């Protein structure tokens, strides 16, 4: 005798502990197995791209903070580089180096949260998460030192920075850079060999190399699929061509690889920061830029390697004080597009960790 069964629909989100914001997954389940999903987003839509058209070029910087709010500095950087490209502004040497340092620090902070939240989704009851937050706190302290803010920094300006870093910043950074590798090794030792984590994450949520390229994935998600693609290497911006670092890639394309790639990237970021600290020259921190930037008529697209992937800003100028059009290529959104293919056939629990391993921020997905 066979029992009659039928699939049922389960809404995961928009308010749910593991959706990292207000994301909704409409799943069709057969028991515990997912047979179909429909991602629904837009709950956090604020019309950031439209708002850009009504603000001055400088006035839009605070809004970029609110895209990927866990990596505000990276968003600042992506935007100011686009404006500088559009207005052909040369940034002073010191500012370039400082930008690299700040962006890499932000990358570490963002990856810490990504790893911590991923393990939380795996069911490790907040322990890794809180330890990651402890380390992130040190980075946030450094950022508070330079910008006075702890989440939405609004520190970068077109042509450089709002102000130079205080004298105590570099010694504090030095201390952090010396301490951090020890912490990363320690966490990695506890987590990477954990039997349950291996059983849960290995082979789960495979995103093949071809699929990753097809969906325009970027960042750790793409690299975990075995593609050696890092904007910092393939199209260096700022002064990234002056540093030595490796691009960690994965081999099995699963959740565990995405976790490994993030941990490895933190180490590489520290390597870059170390080199930048040695090479940073004294001097101006900001180019001579008028308060109201009026770029010549034209368009520019600048992409940077944000922690979540390729963050691109496309700006069109009509020689006024505000962009005629601003488009943001959000890595979180692009990386989400393969969600259905990655999740189908897995169980609800796997769906949660697959979603967690992509590491999205809803502020960026919805804009």
């Amino acid at each position: 005798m066979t029992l009659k069964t039928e699939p049922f629909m389960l809404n995961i989100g928009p308010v749910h502990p593991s959706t990292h914001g207000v994301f909704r997954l409409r799943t069709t389940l057969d028991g515990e197995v997912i047979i179909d999903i429909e991602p629904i987003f837009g709950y956090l839509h604020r019309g950031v791209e439209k708002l850009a058209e009504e603000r001055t070029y400088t006035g839009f910087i605070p809004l970029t903070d609110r895209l990927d709010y866990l990596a505000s500095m990276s968003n600042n950087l992506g935007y100011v580089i686009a404006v500088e490209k559009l207005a052909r502004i040369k940034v002073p040497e010191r500012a370039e180096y400082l930008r690299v340092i700040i962006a890499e620090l932000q990358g570490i902070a963002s990856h810490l949260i990504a790893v911590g939240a991923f393990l939380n989704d795996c069911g490790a009851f907040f322990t890794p998460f809180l330890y990651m937050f402890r380390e992130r706190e040190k980075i946030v302290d450094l950022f508070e030192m330079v910008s006075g803010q702890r989440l939405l920094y609004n520190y970068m300006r077109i042509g450089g920075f709002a102000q130079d870093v205080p004298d105590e910043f570099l010694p504090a950074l030095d201390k952090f850079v010396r301490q951090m590798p020890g912490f990363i090794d320690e966490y990695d030792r506890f987590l990477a060999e954990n039997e349950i984590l291996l059983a849960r994450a290995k082979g789960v949520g495979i995103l093949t190399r071809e699929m990753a390229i097809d969906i325009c994935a970027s960042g750790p998600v793409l690299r975990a699929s075995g593609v050696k693609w890092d904007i910092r290497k393939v199209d260096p911006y700022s002064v990234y061509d002056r540093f030595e670092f490796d691009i960690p890639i994965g081999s099995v394309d699963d959740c565990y690889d995405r976790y490994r790639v993030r941990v490895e990237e933190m180490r590489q970021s520290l390597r870059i920061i170390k080199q930048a600290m040695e090479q940073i020259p004294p001097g101006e921190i900001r180019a001579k830029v008028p308060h109201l930037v009026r770029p010549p008529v034209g368009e520019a697209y600048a992409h940077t390697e944000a922690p979540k992937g390729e963050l691109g800003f496309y700006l069109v100028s009509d020689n006024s004080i505000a962009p005629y059009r601003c488009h943001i290529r959000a890595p979180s959104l692009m990386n989400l597009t393969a969600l259905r293919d990655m999740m189908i056939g897995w169980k609800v629990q796997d769906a949660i960790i697959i979603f967690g391993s992509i590491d999205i921020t809803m502020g960026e997905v919805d804009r």
Partner: protein
Amino acid sequence: MMLPADWPGGFWWHWLVFTVIIIAFVLTLVMGLIWIERRGMARMQARLGPNRVGPFGLLQPVADAIKVLLKEDITPARGDKIVHLLAPITAFFPVLMIFAVVPFQNGALLADLDVGVLYVIAISSISAIGVLMAGWGSNNKYSLLGAMRSVAAVVSYEIPLVLSVVGVVLIAGSLSMNQIVLAQNVPFILLQPLGFLIFFIGGCAEINRSPFDLFEADSELTAGFHTEYSGMKFAMFYLTEYGEALALSAIITTLFLSGWKGPLLAPWLWFVLKTITVFFIMVWTRTTLPRVRIDQLMALSWKFLFPLALINLFITAIEVLVWPEALPWTMIPVNIAIMAVLVLLWSKFFKLGWGRVAV
């Protein structure tokens, strides 16, 4: 003040007084466990934990209880109201009933049943019905999923659990909890290391402790079977959770850690200390380990614990039959070696189930 020898006198009086004492004792211990869990977990997570109410935050559970009592009691509009109401009660009372046969010190148990172990195993499974009722009565898919997982896990884990206890019963030669403690000249954890391991893991899975906390899996099912509960009904589930943890710790203490036996300190103090130690290990795993998946949970039971429990029972039976007079000190290293070999073999040859289902 001396009490008369036959205090409190009379059959019903006797039972009533001691029942009240045991319930009060158990609930106080549960409060202590909640405090230990919250503070211990906080300590392992590099934070402070509740430290404002009372000295060291000891009164935090009291404050929580008052808060939860004042909360609105919500019943889902389209849920089954009667089942929803009965579920927490069905889950909670069996937990209290377990303590009737737990010896807090020599002879200090409400009922020294000849089938004490059997009673514990039978009663402890009733809680699963409460969980299923909660999942069904809530009219919530998260709850239902959590309840389904719970029933599946309880049904699977009951078998290795029982089989591992039989080893202890064979050595002790009695099903009475008090007799089992008296029989432990050395703690049975040394004579039955594999049995202890299976009982501990299986027990954790059955009472919803991490890494097997799939029934309420907060990162997946928001709160699992008690998603739709609030107020006092929620508090009942909360008490059930910790009551079960206490019961499991107490039973492990009784069966494997020689119960109230111990030098110097008062027997009941030994009992409490051992119970807390066992509970602390559960807190430890909860802070340390991620959660397993439902198919892995099943695989762990059927592929690992069940055959190991059978083998353990087999070996124990042979040992009891062939060398009934063997000194415990010679059997301890032998049994530990057997456990090590078996665990290594099994983890080498069997894998936890994982894989994608073709849709």
